């Protein structure tokens, strides 16, 4: 190595960033080259000069108290609490109650009709498909399981309650839908839910509160899926794809869309993966409504990863694309209120 090569590596050597072999070469050279050794010494001298002015002991004495005061002040904002994280169970509560209500409602429907509520659709529900030996004639499209035998009724009741509550929670691929409390979401309702879900969430919770419902939905889907696969066997793969499948997310062949996956992952706290899925969602879904709410959701995911500057950039871009964006305004208002980020709620 000549001096030119050594000097190109001196800073990395000084910073301890060279591989052992290169380090040894530099050291060997420095032993015999006073000029390079002097340059290295100057590097060390410059680093020794680097300093940040210290504000003094009085400042540090007050520092913690001021942080705590700010947190107390934030806690005085309605809707916030001076606690980094509410207990898991408590956070689930606002979502758990509607979910349980929805499950109970379905149970009532199931008990009253003696069958899966989704049997009103054009083809039999997967639960019934899973027992072809019980309902051999029910496989035809639109064929109602009329006057099933007592044995068949028992089989249907056993199968239906297991699937129906999950179907509400994970309908359309695991997305949480607050409207689930009022009944199972429809296919048409999915888009609307995507557009309005955020506003609902924003108005009902603080920024840091992870949307727990997808978590429970996801868990339900995960825990139900193996059992279903077991029960359905090969029949699961033959499910009528023209009909919305209540347990589509649990079926091995039907992967959730990126948009759905993003919500589900976010609910489970897998924020980085949720972000990736949400970006894929935005790349795929080009409708303005999905873009608008989707970008705000992406900003929320970034915020939750403490990547505030990136979140800001996404929100600015959303505002640029959707100048009258209510989701953005709502989110900014909520964010500045809850986190005191200093970002104006109004443009």
């Amino acid at each position, binding site marked *: 190595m000549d001096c030119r090569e050594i000097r190109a590596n001196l800073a990395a050597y000084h910073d301890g960033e060279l591989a052992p072999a290169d380090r040894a070469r530099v050291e060997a050279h420095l032993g015999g080259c006073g000029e390079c050794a002097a340059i290295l010494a100057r590097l060390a001298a410059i680093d020794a000069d680097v300093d*940040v002015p*210290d504000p003094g002991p009085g400042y540090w004495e007050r520092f913690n108290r001021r*942080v705590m005061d700010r947190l107390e002040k934030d806690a005085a904002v309605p809707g916030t609490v001076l606690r980094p994280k509410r207990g898991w169970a408590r956070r689930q509560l606002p979502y758990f109650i509607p979910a349980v209500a929805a499950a109970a409602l379905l149970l009532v429907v199931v008990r009253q009709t003696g069958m899966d509520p989704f049997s009103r659709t054009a083809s039999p529900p997967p639960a019934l498909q899973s027992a072809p030996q019980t309902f051999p004639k029910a496989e035809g499209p639109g064929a109602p399981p009329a006057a099933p035998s007592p044995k068949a009724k028992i089989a249907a009741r056993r199968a239906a309650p297991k699937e129906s509550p999950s179907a509400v929670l994970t309908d359309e691929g695991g997305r949480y839908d607050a409207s689930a409390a009022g009944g199972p979401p429809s296919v048409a309702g999915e888009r609307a839910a995507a557009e309005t879900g955020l506003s609902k969430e924003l108005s009902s919770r603080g920024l840091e509160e992870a949307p727990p419902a997808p978590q429970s939905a996801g868990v339900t889907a995960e825990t139900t899926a193996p059992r279903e696969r077991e029960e359905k066997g090969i029949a699961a793969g033959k499910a009528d794809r023209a009909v919305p499948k209540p347990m589509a997310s649990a079926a091995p062949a039907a992967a959730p869309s990126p948009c759905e996956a993003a919500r589900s992952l976010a609910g489970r706290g897998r924020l980085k993966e949720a972000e990736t899925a949400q970006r894929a969602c935005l790349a795929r879904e080009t409708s303005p409504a999905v873009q608008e709410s989707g970008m705000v959701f992406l900003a929320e995911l970034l915020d939750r990863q403490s990547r505030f500057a990136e979140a800001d950039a996404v929100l600015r871009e959303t505002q640029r694309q959707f100048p009258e964006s209510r989701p953005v305004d709502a989110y900014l208002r909520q964010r500045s209120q809850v986190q005191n980020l200093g970002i104006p709620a109004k443009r």
Partner: protein
Amino acid sequence: MGTDRAGEQDERLAERAARGDRAAFETLVTRHRQAVYRLCWSATGNHADADDAAQETFVRLFRSLSSYDASRPFAPWLRKIAWNTSLTVRRDAKAGVPRLPESEAPEAVDPSPDPSAAAERKQETERVAGAMAGLPAELRTVLVLRAVEGLSYAEIAESTGVPAGTVMSRLSRARERLAALLGKAPGGGA
């Protein structure tokens, strides 16, 4: 005072703080406040903004504890929060957003009993501070993170969100610029 938390790992303290243990949170603040302040000062170049950013960093930390994964090291995560917060504060300052009223001016404190030595040191400190403040924030930050905090290129890259190669080139430029500002001969480098 409860148990001695001095030896407790940051990650465990963060876990406790996330469960609502305020003493654990305050221990984290005490432990990291100076490093956070230095990073914030590096990013903003003045005390008022650094103070604002440092305070805000710990507020954001508190609010984000619920999403912290204790299996990952705490300090890099906190640095990232501090860096992002500093950028926000810097942007707001440029946009004229009024800063928090409680920002205090730094105190000129020197415990030295020798007045002339203290004056000399103060003069040198001000000269270096002036030179540091004269560096662009991106250069100043990598320099402080390397020379004061002792971080590796990879750690600096992670904290500031730039590639390690960029850290290296910024570091080289920062040293050259600082040497020039202090009237010293620059060191070597690429």
